[in-house]
């Protein structure tokens, strides 16, 4: 595991894990290069640039070229990690992601930094709460939304080891390291159950996972047994885990994303075609007003209280 120093009170910025891991991987794999668009600092790649100056390509503020150059570098035998703010590497370069990366099925790793509403007050142009919906349409593009520093490091290693297109959605929001059983592993497409439970299942990813765990604790104190699943891979989904979740009779999804077409939509597609149970999708309704990330989470119920409320309400709808 690539250690990243905790920032404050045991909280981590997962970009540090990304940076430490890619630097370590690059030491042993000379094919690895990074591609940025005036996004060295915002990707925390200053250290990489120092160590491997000739293995960083900065195309300037030009995200369409950024992604396409990644495809070209892969053609030339490199393993490019293409990194920029998630809102721009997806939205601005969507057709390049579709045609040059996914449809061409090339070995490029796209890293969407500061995803979700991390840019808070900078507003919806800089929020990336549509990215999962957009990218989920490209069936062969692996989509990973790590929840903490360890999983971010593991996701980057798994992306490097996999021969094909991968998108890793990295957060800059402070998150704690999750408690896991010793020997826990990460595999693309495999979800992890962090809390066992039988009355309902909360399926979360990214920055919402630790909030879901906290909500489950609150609920346990009232005698409600809520399972918590960290669905770090959104494509492909872990359908076995979703089938098991449906057996609890109620599913609540939570994501730092729009309620339209993200993790919730993906889970709902599976649930509706297999074992329909009451579901609730928590996320942002669409463009959000001005506010800090913390304010936005609280205002839209993306916190411990909001998640616990949604679980109670969804259990009440059980048939």
């Amino acid at each position: 595991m690539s250690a990243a120093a905790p920032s404050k009170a045991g909280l981590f910025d997962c970009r540090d894990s990304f940076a430490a891991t890619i630097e370590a991987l690059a030491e042993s794999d000379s094919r690895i290069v990074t591609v940025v668009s005036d996004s060295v600092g915002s990707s925390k790649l200053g250290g990489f640039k120092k160590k491997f100056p000739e293995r960083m390509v900065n195309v300037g503020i030009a995200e369409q070229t950024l992604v396409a150059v990644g495809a070209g570098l892969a053609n030339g035998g490199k393993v490019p990690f293409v990194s920029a703010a998630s809102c721009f590497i997806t939205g601005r370069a969507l057709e390049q992601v579709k045609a040059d990366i996914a449809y061409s099925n090339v070995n490029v790793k796209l890293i969407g930094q500061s995803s979700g509403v991390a840019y808070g007050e900078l507003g919806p142009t800089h929020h990336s709460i549509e990215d999962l919906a957009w990218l989920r349409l490209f069936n062969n593009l692996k989509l990973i939304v790590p929840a903490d520093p360890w999983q971010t490091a593991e996701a980057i290693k798994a992306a490097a080891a996999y021969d094909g297109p991968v998108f890793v959605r990295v957060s800059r929001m402070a998150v704690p390291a999750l408690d896991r059983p010793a020997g826990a592993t990460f595999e693309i497409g495999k979800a992890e159950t962090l809390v066992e439970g039988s009355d309902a299942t909360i399926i979360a990813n990214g920055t919402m996972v630790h909030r879901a765990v906290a909500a489950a604790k609150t609920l346990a104190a009232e005698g409600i047994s809520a399972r918590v699943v960290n669905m770090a891979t959104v494509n492909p989904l872990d359908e076995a885990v979703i089938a098991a979740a449906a057996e609890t009779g109620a599913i609540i999804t939570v994501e730092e994303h729009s309620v339209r077409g993200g993790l919730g939509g993906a889970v709902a597609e599976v649930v509706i075609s297999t074992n329909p149970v009451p579901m609730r999708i928590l996320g942002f309704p669409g463009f959000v007003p001005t506010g800090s990330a913390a304010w936005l989470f609280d205002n839209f119920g993306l916190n411990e209280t909001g998640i616990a409320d949604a679980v109670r309400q969804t259990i009440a709808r059980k048939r």
Partner: protein
Amino acid sequence: MPSPAAPLKNNIASDIAAQALWIRRRSFQMVYEAQQGHPGGDFSATDILATLYFGVMRYDPKNPTDPKRDRFVMSKGHCTGAFYSVLARAGYFPEADLTTYMEPLSKLNGHPNRNYLPGVETNTGPLGHGLPVALGIAIAGQIDNADFRTFVLTGDGELQEGSNWEAALTGGHRKLENLTLIIDRNRLQQGARTEETASLDPLDDKWRAFGWHVEVVDGHDHAQLLKVLSASPKGRGKPLCVIANTFKGKGVSFMHDNVAWHHGVPTKEQYEQAMRELV
């Protein structure tokens, strides 16, 4: 400002200088209080904005959607400190609203939103959007044979976005003399100098090659800006590109030409020092 037909009474550089000083001070206060923003680019753009709003453009803040108004598109939408300050100063909304910059539910979002504020023509923030939208506005004016002019301000790093060059082709092709692009040529982008990232020089030749008329000015000299921006575009037969040579952080010694102030925010001591210098 007077309605479009009335003569300009305050198009003198000394008045513009006073407005620019006010904008610098007010925008830096906003950034200090919000502890967020892009003060370096606010300061490089301030003299351009002050010249446009207090010496060149015809608009009526009480009738912000007047079809005859001159249009301004703030393509470098991250510089809302300066942009909101100039809009408030021009009378689009109360200056007191500036204190809400970036607060929850504020109309003064980190990037401008036309649905929140009068005087904002289009929502910006992602770079490389302003010129293509301004191109569309200018084409509408061309179709209608209308009198209004369209101005758009971009950064220089922003010109690395290919969308600008697509719009440049059509602007030149359509000989849009009612369209004026101003480039805030501060030679710095977010992380480094433009010429060390994806170089732009010779920038004037590039625009000429795309069919634009080019003027290169000192972007902090109000008289020079006033001269090129207020000259009648009639008969020029080309869109105008003004390359305004500026400095990021202009006006404050420790911010001058310093990339750290792209989105740096001041401490109390730095804020006070800046206010002592901005007089």
